[in-house]
């Protein structure tokens, strides 16, 4: 297993290099002169030249690339054109709300979706099954922001259980954090609950027809033991795959939710940076999300061999 881990980490390097090249070219291949965009319509040629020099755009492309990679390796993602703050600082300020929101969403999704999927598969074709499936169609088809506003209307405005908007860090205590993070997480979770419940149901249906499930029943085990101890773990690999891709998509899905619930996270930072054409920030964010995707993939692959002893690398 350690050998496999090392090989997987080494294999991630080429992926990250390709991403880095793409991010670098992003700035250079964008139509128009970024310096001209930055300087605005009223700039003089001297101002333009100064901006170009400060961005390093006056040097040959190869030299620019090498120095940019050098900066990256030192952990320097550049400086925001708008706020003049280092990009790393900007991201560090915003990452906690996003990550904690994403993790809470994931947790809620799994806790709701997996039992629903198991139940639906167990009562295949029955009323429970149909209800779960209809609910999952709903989860798929209603946009996140609609669900978000509905949740705000019911639980924040009518019932006054939760505040309407905002965010508090976990370091302020778990209570205040949950009070503000629950509604956005639920809104975000709706689509993942739908996705994971469907996958759990399909995977469980397959496994419930297997001989060892019959063996487990022939042993006189309770249905809960048959379902969760024997069937679910065998059904887990495809479910893990969906959870993994779901988590990766979550990072981008967070953008809308953060806007609806006014959470100061990565999502809002991304929107602001794109609208302001703040290239260094955009580049840093792309690198960050790519690295996260690679990491999630690795974790998912490793989880397979923990779930199924037959999978060895």
């Amino acid at each position, binding site marked *: 297993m350690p050998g496999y881990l090392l090989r997987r980490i080494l294999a991630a390097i080429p992926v990250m290099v390709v991403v880095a090249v793409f991010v670098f070219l992003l700035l250079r291949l964008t139509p128009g002169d970024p310096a001209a965009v930055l300087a605005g319509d009223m700039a003089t040629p001297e101002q333009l030249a100064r901006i170009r020099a400060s961005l390093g755009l006056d040097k040959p492309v190869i030299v620019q690339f090498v120095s940019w990679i050098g900066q990256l390796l030192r952990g320097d993602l550049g400086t925001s054109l708008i706020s003049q703050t280092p990009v790393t600082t900007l991201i560090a300020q915003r990452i906690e709300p996003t990550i904690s929101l994403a993790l809470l969403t994931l947790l809620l999704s799994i806790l709701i979706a997996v039992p629903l999927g198991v139940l639906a598969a167990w009562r295949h074709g029955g009323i429970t099954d149909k209800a779960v499936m209809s609910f999952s169609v709903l989860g798929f088809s209603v946009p996140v922001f609609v669900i978000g506003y509905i949740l705000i209307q019911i639980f924040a405005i009518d019932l006054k259980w939760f505040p309407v908007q905002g965010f508090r860090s976990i370091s302020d205590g778990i209570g205040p954090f949950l009070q503000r993070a629950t509604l956005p997480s639920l809104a975000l979770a709706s689509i993942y609950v739908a996705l994971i419940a469907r996958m759990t149901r399909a995977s469980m249906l397959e496994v419930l027809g297997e*001989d060892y499930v019959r063996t487990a029943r*022939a*042993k006189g085990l309770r249905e809960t033991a048959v379902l969760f101890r024997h069937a679910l773990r*065998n059904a887990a690999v495809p479910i893990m795959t969906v959870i993994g891709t779901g988590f990766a998509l979550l990072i981008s899905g967070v953008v809308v939710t953060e806007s609806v619930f006014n959470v100061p996270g990565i999502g809002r930072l991304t929107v602001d940076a794109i609208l302001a054409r703040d290239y260094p920030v955009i580049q840093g964010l792309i690198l960050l999300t790519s690295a996260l995707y690679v990491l999630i993939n690795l974790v998912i692959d490793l989880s397979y061999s923990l779930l199924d002893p037959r999978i060895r690398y």
Partner: protein
Amino acid sequence: MSAPILSVRDLVVGIGPDAASPIVLDGVSLDIAAGETLCLVGESGSGKSVTSLAVMGLLPRGALVARSGRVLLEGEDLLAADRRRLRALRASRMAMIFQEPMTALNPVMPVGRQIDEVLRAHTSLTPAERRRRVLSMLEQVHLPDVARVFASYPHQLSGGQRQRIMIAMALILEPKLLIADEPTTALDVTTQKEILRLVHELQEKQGTSVLFITHDMGVVAEIADRVCVMHQGTVVETDTVDAILRAPRKDYTRRLLSAVPSLTPRAPRPVASAEIVLETVELGKVYARRRFLRRAEETVAAEAVSFALRRGRTLGIVGESGSGKSTVARCVMRLVDPTAGAIRVKGRDISSLSRSALQPHRKRIQMVFQDPYRSLNPRVTVGESIAEGPTNYGVPRDAAFARARSLLEIVGLPPDAITRYPHQFSGGQRQRIAIARALAMEPDVLVADEAVSALDVSVQAQVLALLDDIQERLGVSLLFITHDLRVAAQICDDIAVMQKGRIVEYGAASEVLTAPRQAYTRQLLDAAPGRDWDFARFMPREPAAPAAAPVADVAKPSGGH
């Protein structure tokens, strides 16, 4: 007979709870006395597995429903018992082992824990006591190195070991009734013999009654006290094993027994042609698994395999799983590339021909696969399936379809089969279609890889007769791969016995099967269940040739020898 352990009375099981829908068991009655072995025999669809599942209360929920009758286990009606009561009875009073020990065990849980679960569900023993019980049970089923086996996952054990685990799991609480559903069908003959012996040994020790479900008359002859013959959801007749094998009263039983191929080889056929159509010379196949920064792991699947097949003859390759017989078949087909030796088809070596150079030779050898349910594309009509090969070789579509029609007639299917789809046919009919498809290429050699193993005996007999007939009419040669010595005895002119990738004995079928020279061949013959019976003649077989080793008794004397 004292009060039976299990008594099934007029059991009716139907599809779904709706009284108007079809029934699959129509008034089944049977009794098993204490310590007795009752064999439930019948072909697929006879209802023998449904009967056993109904006893255990394991009928697929909603799909099959017991409608009437009684199932009495030591006098207690199981059909009237609630779920909690049934759960309590399972494993403690009645237990079950299944056909496929690979799929019947949970692949992601160590086997020791799977046995331990039985104790956790039914006893209040401490973890240390439970572990002791499980380890002692593993010893009783004669597994080696029990502590290691306890922590092993199913895929780390052999098929025979897995079935021992299943038996340990079933018998750890010493139930009164053991239901064994084809427990040895997926195993090699030598393993089968050991498992049958083990079941018998534990049965003696614990006084268990055994309901043994099988389609194999050989196994019946070995282990049964009494036999219950089933057909289409009803009991045809029930009697002692001796009465059933020697003097069956019902026509159906007679037909069933008559279809069992004899171990006595058929009379040698005259050699019609000296032309060698297929020959292998020192054929070898080594699988190498390249590993990053490590030495390649090599597996020898076949080594120095040499044989010759003449026009119009049948060569059987027999052996247990992993002996390399299928590897040889695939090499001959060039479905895998051999790593050594030559394959000569009508004198031309095809072992190293490139894909394109191979093309004209492909049609000379055609294959019939084991499972006709999976070897035919379900979305392609029978006609298209048969005509596809010839049209690939440039035969006009009309001509190919005309030929397909005549081939369907040869294999005994109606002409309208051509526009139908595989799912509209039975297993035996599908295998006929597969044979017609292979013949459409007008091959010199037909490779049949376990081509009758998935079929019921009566259908098996028909397909074997068809292959014989085709050989006579078309002069095609047959390379017949099988694990079943009975089938080999009835169809092969010559036999090559394979073990661990090598041919250990090769000669005329009449000699190999009656006077084997190699110890391994003798071992295979000894392990063949019911080797002392000639079922089709309702009598014991004439004594084997003197070369055969003394016959070891597998289970209990079944009478008559």
